[in-house]
């Protein structure tokens, strides 16, 4: 059997449970309409009207996401290297050290330019 098939079985059980819960929640609870209940929760005060452009967020989060992609791709390269280490020999190690050094230069650059500062 393909090793990925059992995962689908577990996923179907988990997903089925989630769908059942969400569907059941609509029936088991009471339904008492109240306009105030449907407003966004802001500790009791009138909700702030959404800003123009809607759903905007600080640019810092975008920067974190970009840095994540850079470093995550780096670790993706490290994983197959680690698994195949014994059969690759010294050459691969030297290559990987060079690769990590170049990543470190980029990392030092980001640090120096303040890309890792939060405020």
């Amino acid at each position: 059997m393909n090793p990925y098939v059992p995962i689908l079985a577990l996923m179907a059980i988990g997903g089925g449970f989630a769908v059942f819960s969400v569907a059941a929640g609509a029936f088991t609870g009471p339904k008492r309409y109240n306009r105030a209940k449907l407003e966004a929760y802001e500790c009791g005060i009138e909700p702030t009207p959404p800003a123009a452009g809607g759903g905007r967020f600080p640019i810092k989060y975008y920067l974190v996401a970009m840095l994540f992609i850079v470093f995550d791709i780096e670790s993706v390269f490290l994983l197959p290297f680690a698994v195949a280490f014994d059969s690759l020999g010294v050459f691969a190690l030297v290559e990987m050290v060079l690769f990590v050094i170049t990543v470190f230069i980029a990392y030092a650059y980001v640090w120096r330019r303040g890309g890792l500062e939060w405020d």
Partner: protein
Amino acid sequence: MLTPALLAENPTANFSEDTVWVVLVKAVLLFAVAVVATLLMIWAERRVVGRMQSRPGPNRHGPFGLLQSLADGVKLALKEDIIPAAADKVVFVIAPLIACTACFTSFAVIPFGPEVRIPFTDIDTPLQLTDMNVAVLFILAVAGIGVYGIVLAGWSSGSTYPLLGGLRSSAQVISYEIAMGLSLVSVFLYSGSMSTSAIVEAQQSIWWCLPLLPSFVIYVIAMVGETNRAPFDLPEAEGELVGGFHTEYSSLKFALFFLAEYVNMVTVSMLATTLFLGGWRAPWPISLWDDANTGYWPLIWFALKTCLFLFMYIWLRGTLPRLRYDQFMRFGWKILIPAALLWTMAVAVVRAMDQFGSIDRRDRVMILCGVVLVLALIWAAVEALRGTPPQEKPADPEIPVDPFAGGFPVPAMPGQRLIRTNGQAPSPTDATPALEEVRGG
């Protein structure tokens, strides 16, 4: 050249006798284990935190209050299911489904034990649903999909607190996922595989938490950050963000997020056990007994080791205050990531000396390096968290500001001075000296 080397590292567990019904039974059992573990974990957390705070904790429903979580679940089911008017309705409903499905899926590759005979049949099967040569990578990937549930929940609620909570959570999870991924590299180096059963197999003589101590420490820190738990529970910091990404959720949709959080905690704890504590292998004094690692016994050792990590979660929550967000990000990006990267390269170099060179003092070198790095890590953490006191800026001349200009009251920002309006539209001449004296006093 690379491909055959990668494919060669197949799982050591043998699934050849698994028929369809065996797979289905195992999947249902895994699901049950996840749900029951969640119920027990919530109960244990409330009891233990209660003890730590000198109060009994829930003790009314069932023996020792064991049925408390079940009662809470029923209560949630009987609450009204609210979808806010400002929400994006489709995404709002899909988000808890994603979070819940993803958390159960990553259970599939956890090895609970060796091959056993299923009672009343003659089928031998490993106590594991499935395994493949990228199993650990699969868990990381599924954890990444779980983040979608959180960030979509925050975004679709159409409200400020959930949006901020969802953003914080996603930034936090991806920041700590790098450190986590890097700490796993050295485990793969030592095991020569990413398959969970092969990693457990490779720890026959020594558990990886000893030679790879820094990886272990980094993984444990990152796993607490990944699951949004105290002291890294900034996405749901109730003093700042009410409930974070699930502020607008009620009824069973809220329960699904709660469930997902606890199942994720159990999953990362089980992964930590598998990768660093020898998986289902018996701990030392018990391992002298020949039958300790056969049959159904390993389930006990595995559960005990997992409980160790789960207790650590509760202990952390009962002990440590929450970090500030900038401290948290600084810790992740400036300490954990470079430490994990340097340690990984050190492991690779030492391993290469061992494999291709003539140096034969690997373990001593490794343990020495490990101790030095852990000390450096602790020092750096203390240093970073202490930080410098914020510099007081020289007071600017204060600018008078109308607090009702936007139609709703706002507090004064630094460098601003509120004008008394008594709820009326202000005019620039309103600010009388007498009122300013009241404010200043």
